[in-house]
């Protein structure tokens, strides 16, 4: 029987939510790593029992974990993330040079073909790769040492590499996004990188069309159209149809084009989901209404999805990695809030119900479709 496993990272532990294909009754497992901040968990697409988890603490730093049995048991793996070669500097908030300092792993992206290979996007921004199931990590230093690296600046949440997208057709093509440097693409497996920010406009930087400096919040791709990417930027929802060479805005009729996550429907590559947030100074939904917006036209025309979501007095946020989809016949959509709710829709967003209501603040939501 098919089913789903929802991996939830929170400020105080990880939770695993499982259900069958009806997605009505849920089993809640956790907290795993109770008390620890769990930035991100993600399963291997080729071995669903293999799950990687990033655990970070202001006190005790970064630790990494791996499960080989679908999250029932965990083993601690390697946590040494050393920048390769000369570390160099990026810009600090005040514009002065600041040395790169490893702080935490924001995002884990398991390989599409090998369960032992996984990428880690980290703060301060860099991309690491493990080919031994997380025991050791090697930086793909061509990104951090890009000629623009000394001009990258942190966003409000730190200079984090938060998005990693592996091209399902071209195994040498990788996209990453960094707040607040922008999006980058590699066509050689991560050795060399090109900024792909043309078309982005950011009013908060002196040169609105700058090559780097854009605060990208999240990127999504449908696997059937690897040259089409959707982006939630700090402000603006963007789209490219040529692998990032040129972006154009598709914010259309959204009530606010600020937000964090963005996702694409599992079976409809022109169906896109965002969660509008009022502003960068007010990290809550407009009008106190928690609404997912869906476009079935690849952007520009958006409809509010409200059935089952709180439509008054709701002031939670949805963070950039806290939205995901499943690939069952009726596509499921999931997101978690800073208020500790995890909502699920088993009908592409038409209706919603909370799986859990009272978790710690949700930092990440990833879904595994089990067949």
């Amino acid at each position, binding site marked *: 029987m098919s089913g789903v496993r929802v991996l939830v990272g929170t400020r105080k532990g990880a939770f695993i939510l499982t259900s069958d294909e009806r997605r009505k009754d849920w089993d809640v497992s956790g907290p795993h*790593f*109770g*008390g*620890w901040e769990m930035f991100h968990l993600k399963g291997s697409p080729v071995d669903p029992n293999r799950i990687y988890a990033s655990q970070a*603490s*202001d*006190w*005790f*730093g*970064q*630790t990494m974990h791996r499960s080989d049995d679908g999250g029932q048991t965990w083993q*601690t793996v390697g*946590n*040494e993330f*050393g920048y390769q070669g000369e570390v160099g500097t990026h810009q600090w908030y005040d514009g002065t040079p600041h040395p790169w300092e490893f702080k935490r792993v924001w995002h884990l992206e398991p390989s599409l073909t090998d369960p032992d290979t996984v990428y880690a996007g980290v703060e301060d921004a860099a991309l690491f790769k493990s080919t031994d199931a997380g025991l050791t990590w090697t930086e793909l230093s061509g990104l951090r040492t890009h000629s623009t690296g000394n001009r990258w600046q942190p966003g409000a949440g730190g200079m984090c590499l938060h998005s990693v997208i592996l091209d399902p057709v071209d195994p040498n093509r990788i996209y990453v996004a960094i707040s607040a440097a922008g999006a980058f693409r590699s066509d050689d497996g991560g050795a060399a990188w090109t900024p792909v920010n043309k078309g982005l406009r950011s009013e908060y930087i002196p040169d609105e069309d700058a090559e780097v400096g854009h605060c990208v919040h999240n990127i999504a791709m449908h696997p059937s159209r690897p040259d089409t990417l959707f982006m939630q930027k700090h402000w603006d929802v963007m789209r490219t149809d040529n692998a990032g060479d040129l972006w154009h805005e598709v914010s259309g009729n959204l009530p606010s084009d600020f937000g964090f996550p963005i996702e694409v429907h599992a079976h409809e590559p022109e169906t896109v989901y965002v969660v509008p947030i009022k502003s960068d100074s007010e990290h809550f939904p407009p009008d106190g209404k928690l609404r997912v917006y869906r476009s079935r036209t690849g952007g520009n025309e958006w409809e509010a999805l409200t059935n089952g979501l709180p439509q008054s007095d709701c002031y939670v946020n949805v963070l950039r990695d806290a939205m995901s989809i499943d690939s069952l016949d009726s596509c499921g959509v999931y997101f978690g809030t800073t208020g500790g709710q995890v909502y699920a829709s088993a009908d592409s967003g038409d209706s919603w119900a909370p799986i859990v209501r009272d978790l710690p603040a949700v930092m990440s939501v990833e879904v595994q479709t089990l067949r």
Partner: protein
Amino acid sequence: MIRVILPPHLRTLARTGKEVELDLDPDAPVTPSAVLDVLEGMYPTLRGTIRDHQTKQRRPMVRFFACERDISHDSPDTPLPDVIASGREPFWILGAISGG
């Protein structure tokens, strides 16, 4: 034999209890560095959580106590008091009280 008290999160990580006992080289000075070397060898999952992998610098929000005194800012190569070295008193590793 040296006794070391671990903070709760590190006990969970190391899958051990509040207090662990370590056997150090009897011919070498008993210092925080020597204690941590043996501790990390016995519990590899603690590597990087108390001090940096490369520089061996104490993480900023970790504190070391010996005989009710905060020795966090002493050199990690300073010999610990005899009561610690003999195991009569434990060496404490604490997470600093901070945050909300």
